[in-house]
């Protein structure tokens, strides 16, 4: 990419906005994922009893919905990012491209 084009895009407030929004959204979700997964691992390492505790009268333990919950959370959080990136971020980035390449 030639330097004038790069400079033009960097000077575009839309580009700065896109970069800022995507970066903060991506990192927020990354941290959420890390907290959920390592929280789960630490729970297993230090609080096994909690996961093995029965919910009600039956054999079902808290560990089952929590474990399944981590799987569902992983799928949902990926979906949340992709949804926003494929609409909002892509519109912004199309706009930047149009402005820069005209």
């Amino acid at each position: 990419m030639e330097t004038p084009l790069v400079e033009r895009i960097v000077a575009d407030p839309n580009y700065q906005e896109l970069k800022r929004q995507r970066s903060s959204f991506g990192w927020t979700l990354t941290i959420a994922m890390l907290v959920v997964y390592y929280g789960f691992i630490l729970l297993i390492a230090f609080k096994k009893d909690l996961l093995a505790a029965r919910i009600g009268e039956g054999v079902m333990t808290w560990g089952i919905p929590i474990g399944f919950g981590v799987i569902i959370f992983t799928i949902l959080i990926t979906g949340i990012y992709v949804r926003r990136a494929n609409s909002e971020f892509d519109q912004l980035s199309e706009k930047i491209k149009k402005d820069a390449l005209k």
Partner: protein
Amino acid sequence: MSRSKILAVALAVAALPGAGFAADVIQGGEKQATNWTAIVMFGAFVLMTLMITKWAASKTKSAADFYTAGGGITGFQNGLAIAGDYMSAASFLGISAAVMTSGYDGLIYSIGFLVGWPILTFLMAERLRNLGKFTFADVAAFRFAQTPVRIFAASGTLVVVAFYLIAQMVGAGSLIELLFGLDYWIAVVLVGALMMIYVLFGGMTATTWVQIIKACLLLGGASFMSFMVLWKYGFSPEAMFADAVRVKGELALASGKTPEEAAVAGQSIMGPGTFIKDPISAISFGMALMFGTAGLPHILMRFFTVPSAKEARKSVMWATTWIGYFYLLTFIIGFGAITYVLTNPEFLTADGKLVGGTNMAAVHLAHAVGGNIFLGFISAVAFATILAVVAGLTLSGASAVSHDLYSTVIKKGKADSASELRVSRITTICLGIVAVILGIAFQNQNIAFMVSLAFAVAASANFPVLFLAILWKDCTTKGAVVGGFVGLVLSVVLTVLSPSVWEATLGHPVGSAPFPYTSPTIFSMTLAFLTIWIVSKMDNSARAKVDRAGFLAQQVRSETGIGASEASAH
């Protein structure tokens, strides 16, 4: 819990055979009677994939077609192909077997394999697509001196591919004895030959479709099995779990436990057991799985097969969905195996073990819920699964040699598409032959560590370099190469010094391993990041100035996709 109860749980869990960390590798078990239904069904799969390869061969003309199917795969197709690339026979048979033996621990294990995908999505997927062309080295070396970074990336790729490939070949050999009742070497040669044909003639197009078909068959088969299991319990998970707890309790009672101990042993499958030994190993292993996913070369390569960043994101969305769904199914299948398989004398040996070994859990369950035909189907699918994984690995290894080493390092970027294609085909043949030889050489070795090692190297070498090259302005050529090699060497050396190789494979006495933890990643990955950071910070060379100056243009392209390589026209 009282002390005696804790002791009883510990005893019950310790009595469980071979669960846990080895669940990602299929090994052992004795040869079964020849299963013609399975062989015929597998033959049908091979025929179909060979026809696809023939069609794909007519579309594979340039290097771009070979490496990335011309960039013309849709996000949905690529998502299925990634899932097909990632869900191995070992995760299907191994994890359902781990659930059958130790219940909840199998779930903990499978969750580790899933949680890397969001990280890959949030921080890397679209930027990879915008910066890269054929291999992840294109991205890692984007603004750096090409030669050293490409040599590093090719080393990282080949080490990961080699260990992953050996595990798959040995798995194929063991599986064919179990599933088809044929000899070990037949499987290794068959897998080697078929993967060469797919990759050699059909390149990425054939590999992608083999992976898509395999993913559909595997997901379809696993869905059917889970459906049948849940149906028996009126779709009540509580009823299924209660029955499994009852079966486990009765088995414990039959093995000579007191009624109290047996009750505890039964309920123990509903909570965490011995899978996590110490917090350091647990976190370290979790890091290897999480960040290793974002450093596996054959997975990263799949992002270049789609036409845009939007499709790359859709790919990971679908891949995560299918893989997550698949792990939920393996959990149900494992519990189904407890109630259907462990209670049926037809599937058990005289001393109460599974016929053919623990890894046959899902296969016996298939027999129990769907009869002989479905048993043949699941056996054929389990074996076909290996083909899809090895084809992706071979393609990735071949691209590292032809695109990164031959075209960029040796020919300094002046190689034409035809000669690059020729080199990748020669490499494919070499990799196929090497894989067959190593598959036979490692037949009777304990290779349980190999997939974990591949993940550890991917997390400690490939991931830090890729991550900092994309996101950190001050990263330099020297920092990336030195830090990357530190991560690579350290993860391999520490694995060799850990109990799983030092004691289990090299035969030193138990407790003598110099490195006490199961996974090296918490140390090797951290040190790789630290080394890249320190070396880059201290780097005042002329090259370092070029590297840092190149960041702005790289960032603009990675964020907007301006200048990104487009899908080639067909």
